[in-house]
């Protein structure tokens, strides 16, 4: 029997989409039954109380969680978010309900063995509820008590060779798209770069030394399957600088209807016969494609590598061979001054281990931000406040028309004194000799 009545939540058990309520209830039951006879280290009714609290929130139209207190594991400034409930007497099971962020593996591939180990650990020492995964990418252990934090960390590191992820004014847990592991569009090995950066910057990840949070995300190509361009202070997006490879025979197969366009992604509706002119050539944003007789031609110099044609005809068109990545900076959510997308900083850099060239850019960006950034100022906000030029100076990157969508339309240029012939010091009395008052 459920500890709390949850009439509102119960309504979310119907309908086809997997019901988190049913899942929660099943776990609550399981804990009550406790078939494995675990000596639960947090209250057995933690999930019951979570259900009860959630029901109350549904009724009240408001959260019942309080601000997190400062809890964590020794020597780390992140990885744990404190959480307390504002009705601890009604719901003692969730009076303390901290989360832990477990740094997910690249591409979020798992063995069942590893997952089961985590489950066992978490059943014993936590609520058994998780987020798979948090928005930043971590495996989220949802709900434990302060005294369990070090225990869990100890078991994670000692038994599972597994560290926590980031929170606070740190480097946050980097995350990547599946990329080369299973995707033909990958222009570099996202998993390797992500893993290397995560490990090379463990100190930045665990010990807050930044003005605010900082996020890396790694996308293998401009399709951006990990949305790096929208939500990472530094996005690494694969690209190439030579020609798109064309298999003219396959082009003909698409035209002939033997291969469905876009790998069949539109198959649930009859869109009519594939029309290469309308669907590919005519939709190329740079208009750099054309048919010459039976041959598809691409003026690669004019291509901006938007991926559209490749997405539509993956068997005929392939990314180039001279690959690397673009670095964009400053993406963030709207707080405080409005959201930002990443702005292009490095149009192209090779992405080959040990990635020294990339690390140089990262470190110059950090140095500048740590020097100039105010408390709680994201990189994007600093760039806005001081100007993109300052970022270029700080990173030693030469200004390039690729840095802008368009040149400035106001002429308000802040010239520097050394750029202006004769400098700024002038004698007004000398001037007045030629220009009487």
């Amino acid at each position, binding site marked *: 029997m459920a500890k709390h009545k949850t009439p509102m939540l119960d309504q979310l058990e119907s309908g086809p989409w997997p019901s988190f309520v049913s899942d929660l209830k099943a776990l609550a039951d399981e804990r009550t039954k406790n078939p494995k006879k675990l000596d639960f280290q947090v209250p057995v009714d933690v999930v019951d109380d979570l259900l009860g609290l959630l029901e109350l929130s549904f009724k009240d139209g408001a959260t019942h969680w309080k601000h997190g207190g400062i809890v964590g594991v020794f020597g780390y400034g992140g990885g744990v978010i404190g959480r307390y409930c504002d009705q601890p007497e009604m719901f003692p099971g969730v009076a303390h309900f901290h989360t832990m962020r477990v740094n997910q593996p690249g591409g979020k591939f798992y063995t069942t063995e590893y997952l089961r180990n985590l489950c066992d650990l978490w059943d014993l020492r936590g609520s058994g509820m998780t987020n798979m995964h948090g928005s930043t990418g971590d495996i989220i252990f949802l709900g434990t008590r302060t005294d369990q934090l070090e225990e869990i960390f100890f078991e994670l590191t000692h038994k599972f060779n597994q560290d926590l992820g980031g929170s606070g004014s740190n480097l946050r847990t980097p995350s990547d798209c599946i990329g080369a592991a*299973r995707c033909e569009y990958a222009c570099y090995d996202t998993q390797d770069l992500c*893993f290397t950066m995560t490990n090379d910057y463990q100190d930045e990840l665990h010990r807050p030394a930044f003005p605010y949070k900082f996020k890396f995300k790694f996308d293998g190509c401009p399709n951006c399957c990990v949305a790096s361009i929208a939500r990472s202070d530094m996005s690494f997006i694969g690209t190439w600088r030579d020609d798109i490879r064309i298999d003219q025979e396959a082009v003909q197969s698409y035209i002939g209807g033997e291969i469905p366009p876009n790998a*069949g992604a539109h198959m649930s509706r009859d869109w009519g016969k594939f029309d290469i002119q309308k669907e590919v050539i005519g939709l190329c944003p740079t208009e750099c494609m054309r048919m010459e007789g039976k041959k598809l031609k691409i003026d690669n110099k004019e291509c901006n590598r938007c991926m559209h044609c490749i997405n539509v005809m993956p068997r005929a068109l392939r990314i180039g061979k001279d690959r690397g990545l673009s670095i964009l900076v400053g993406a963030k959510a709207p707080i405080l001054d409005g959201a930002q997308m990443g702005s292009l900083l490095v149009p192209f850099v090779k992405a080959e281990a040990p990635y020294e060239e990339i690390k140089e850019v990262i470190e110059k960006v950090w140095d500048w931000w740590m020097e100039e950034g105010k408390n709680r100022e994201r990189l994007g906000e600093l760039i806005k406040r001081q100007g993109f030029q300052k970022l270029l100076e700080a990173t030693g990157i030469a200004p390039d028309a690729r840095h802008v969508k368009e040149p400035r339309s106001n002429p308000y240029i802040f010239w520097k004194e050394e750029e202006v012939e004769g400098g700024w010091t002038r004698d007004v009395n000398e001037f007045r000799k030629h220009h009487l008052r």
Partner: protein
Amino acid sequence: MAFISSGYDPKEPMKNRITDIGPRKYDEFYPPVIAKNKGTWLYHQYLKPGVYYHVAESGDKVFTVRVGGARLMSTLLIQEICEIADKHCGGYVRWTTRNNIEFMVDSEKKVEPLIKDLESRKFKGGSFKFPVGGTGAGITNIVHTQGWAHCHTPATDASGPVKATMDVLFEDFKSMRLPAHLRVSLACCLNMCGAVHCSDIAILGYHRKPPMLDHEYLDKMCEIPLAIAACPTAAIKPAKVEVGGQKINSVAVNNDRCMFCGNCYTMCPAMPLADKEGDGIVIMAGGKVSNRRSAPKFSKVVVAFLPNEAPRWPQTTAVIKKMVDVYANDARKYERLGEWAERIGWERFFEKCELPFTHHLIDDFRDPAYYTWRQTTQFKF
């Protein structure tokens, strides 16, 4: 309940301490077909919604079956996933960047048994545990945040509206009839822990009442200067107030300057905003992340406010369903929702989606607002 030690000794925290080891290395977890063919994939193709395969230079194929799910997930369910992965996939499984689960097999004949197994599993309440779908030109899982299940600042729940919305959109999860893929996201406050600021359709929790001031505790619980500095509109000023006959330090808020962002509450727990009637949902639309054809775009506010109607948020899901259906019928193949709205013009978008245009939707936030007004005679009647 007896405390079980992991081996950690609180008196000697540094003893045997292991730190800074990072995550497990990716390739420990690759299924063999992935490990073997990494970097040599040639192309992919869909078999049906939720099912696609990749072909490598070696001739190897990997078949992926994608299933949706609530990302708020119990160990019980994860163990069930492991059971399935052991049975069909050699003990490997992965999650996608949008919280779907992908089961991979290395031959086509393993696909149908896997699907059958997945689709047969249901929760007690009747919902699917592992619905197959979410690929291609359809609707995949909603990325979302914590809501009332764990966070202290939400203006709406996360898992609740997501379940309600996915129930309504379920057919589009199971099919690929749309002009392009359509991403729905939810964030429970405007910290926007996710990419709702550039989603085709975004559900955003929003407050509409300025913070209450818990004067008695404010100076004790908060750093007043930090709370003041947190306000992007400079609505907060230091103030002396009388509580129980005593003058104490606190703050005053100029309510007319408040835009309900909650940043003060983030810095100061004595300034709560949450309110049953004030809180609710903003619907945004037309954002995107990919660089395909057009550059990434921010989502735009298309409905300024809908109330929190727990447990099923019927107005919210109705607006979303309407937008999806109108988009499905009106847009061109490959056209994302935002590209469609821009092509037909936002005035048509509102007309076609039968959404009222209210003054709230006109940008008035800082200088860039100007760029969203209409500086041309080009418009449609």
